[in-house]
């Protein structure tokens, strides 16, 4: 019996393909892409202000509500944060990635690799919580700053308009720090992979032709590592755009995109507006991905 079925299948490879591919394709195609379609459809519905119910008729009314000053501020704030977090993670990640790719022995490299992977996979929420403890007014960072007599510097930072606040645990600086912390591993790995692929012969050739180490780094290593940085930036940018945990935990009343989406779908049940707002980061990410593809980031993933 089993061998009969086996022979039957063996002679019909297309049937095997359908059996194998069917379930995952159904799942991702219907459940996931279907949901994305539902998101788009919902953004063209509107919420009836009197009944508080979603009116299922296609209209552009919700998109008109979207382009208000307040909403545009939220988009600008989030995009600016995503961009600065991306630059900061790239700067912080590069030395470690460079060390891993060029200098670490196989043994050291394996443990460094694990040291980067562990925070990437685990306890995202707990790691955000840890910073709530660290940045609190009575927490370890304030204590340390007081020990080294740099209170004036911290107070000056907190007194800055736009980025400061009553304490680091309620400020833009705090949000920025925590974003950089939680997304750093996503930048290290692609940069390290890109540096790993820089051919040693090119570096030697550059040296033989009389370039100083600094020149070789600027003209050979950096341009070849750049697609890796762009690949990492896809993650850091996208993850920052879509996060509401960090700004909720460490922010004040000025919202980020994720918080706006959450509050519209939650208390007021305004799923159409929440969906329409989500279309903005989706559009920004699509543009970003197209740009990244042009810069060769997908070969570096």
């Amino acid at each position, binding site marked *: 019996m*089993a*061998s009969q079925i086996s*022979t039957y299948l063996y002679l019909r490879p297309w049937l*095997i*393909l359908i059996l*194998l*591919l069917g*379930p*995952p394709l159904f*799942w*991702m*195609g219907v*459940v*996931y892409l279907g*949901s994305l379609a*539902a*998101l788009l459809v*919902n953004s063209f519905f509107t919420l009836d202000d009197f009944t508080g119910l979603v009116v299922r008729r296609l209209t552009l009314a919700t998109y008109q509500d979207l382009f208000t000053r307040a909403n545009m501020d939220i988009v600008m704030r989030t995009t600016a944060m995503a961009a600065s977090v991306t630059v900061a993670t790239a700067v912080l990640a590069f*030395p*470690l990635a*460079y*060390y891993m790719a*060029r*200098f670490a022995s196989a043994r050291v490299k394996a443990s460094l690799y694990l*040291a980067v*992977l*562990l925070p990437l996979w*685990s*306890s*995202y*929420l*707990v*790691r*955000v*919580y*840890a910073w709530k403890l660290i940045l*609190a007014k*009575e*927490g*370890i960072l304030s204590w340390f700053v007081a020990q080294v007599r740099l209170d004036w510097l911290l107070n000056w930072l907190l007194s800055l308009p736009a980025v400061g606040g009553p304490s680091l645990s309620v400020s833009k600086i705090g949000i920025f720090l925590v974003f950089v*912390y939680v997304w750093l591993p996503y930048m*290290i790995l692609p940069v390290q992979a890109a540096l790993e692929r820089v051919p040693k012969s090119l570096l030697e050739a550059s040296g033989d032709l009389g370039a100083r180490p600094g020149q070789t780094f600027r003209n050979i290593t950096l341009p070849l590592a750049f697609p890796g940085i762009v690949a990492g930036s*896809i993650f850091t940018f*996208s*993850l920052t755009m*879509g*996060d*509401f*945990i960090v700004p*909720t*935990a460490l922010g004040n009343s000025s919202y980020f995109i*994720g918080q706006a*989406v*959450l509050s519209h779908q939650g208390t007021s049940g305004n*799923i159409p507006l*929440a*969906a329409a707002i*989500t279309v903005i*980061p989706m559009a920004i*990410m699509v543009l970003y991905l197209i740009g990244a593809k042009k810069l060769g980031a997908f070969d570096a993933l």
Partner: protein
Amino acid sequence: MRSNLEPSHESRSPLTLRLAAIAALLFLHLPVLIILLYAFTTDETTYSFPPPGLTVNWFGVAWGRNDFWNALFLSLRVAGVATAMAILLGTLAAAAVYRSKFFGREAISFLLVLPLALPGIVTGIALRSAMSLASVSFTFWTIVVGHATFCVVVVYNNVLARFRRMGLSQIEASMDLGANTFQTFRYVVLPHLATALLAGGMLAFALSFDEVIVTTFTAGQQMTLPIWIFSQLTRPRDRPVTNVVALIVIVITFVPILLANRLTQDREA
């Protein structure tokens, strides 16, 4: 891959590079240690440092909390079921991509990675929109569906990488010796995939156990452990219990990741 890329030892790393690398490592790992310390603090109402005293009382208090146990069990059940679904769907997709060439094969990887590459709120609000359109109410299964969707790619990547290392010759040999498809799968393919399945499954489990962004949109009033912690983050009522719970979450997610790492290392070495 590993052996032919011996690092260049002739040039020693510059001191500033080493210091910058060490600084990045400390930045990545020191903050978690603070959780370990605060789980033992006697301070109930603030996050003061240094802690005024140390105690193990809060572990007992957390043990007696029903809301903690309920949230923990819900998270474990969701992660277990989502992982099982991810293993099934991810393995099927990897097998299909590995053994046949078909139109749109490249698109499969892209489709699978999309839920992880797009911002988390997109997947969340998309599922929420679909539930609203189809008038589905929040249940255990709505959480599972969301988690399985972004876990599939983890298993898929692990299994596909293993398939590619395995090569077709062993499968062909098994068939030549008279084994049918099912016997070949049971005695040749499955043993080969075992550790990749386990590693992918553990990573998927850790990913699901920890997830909060998508869950917020698909859980309704249900409390998974991350949602419980998130509620404490915004309105801290039980700081000492939260500290203990945070420590427990670290342990629960670290163990499978370390095991997964070990499982994939052994094969590659």
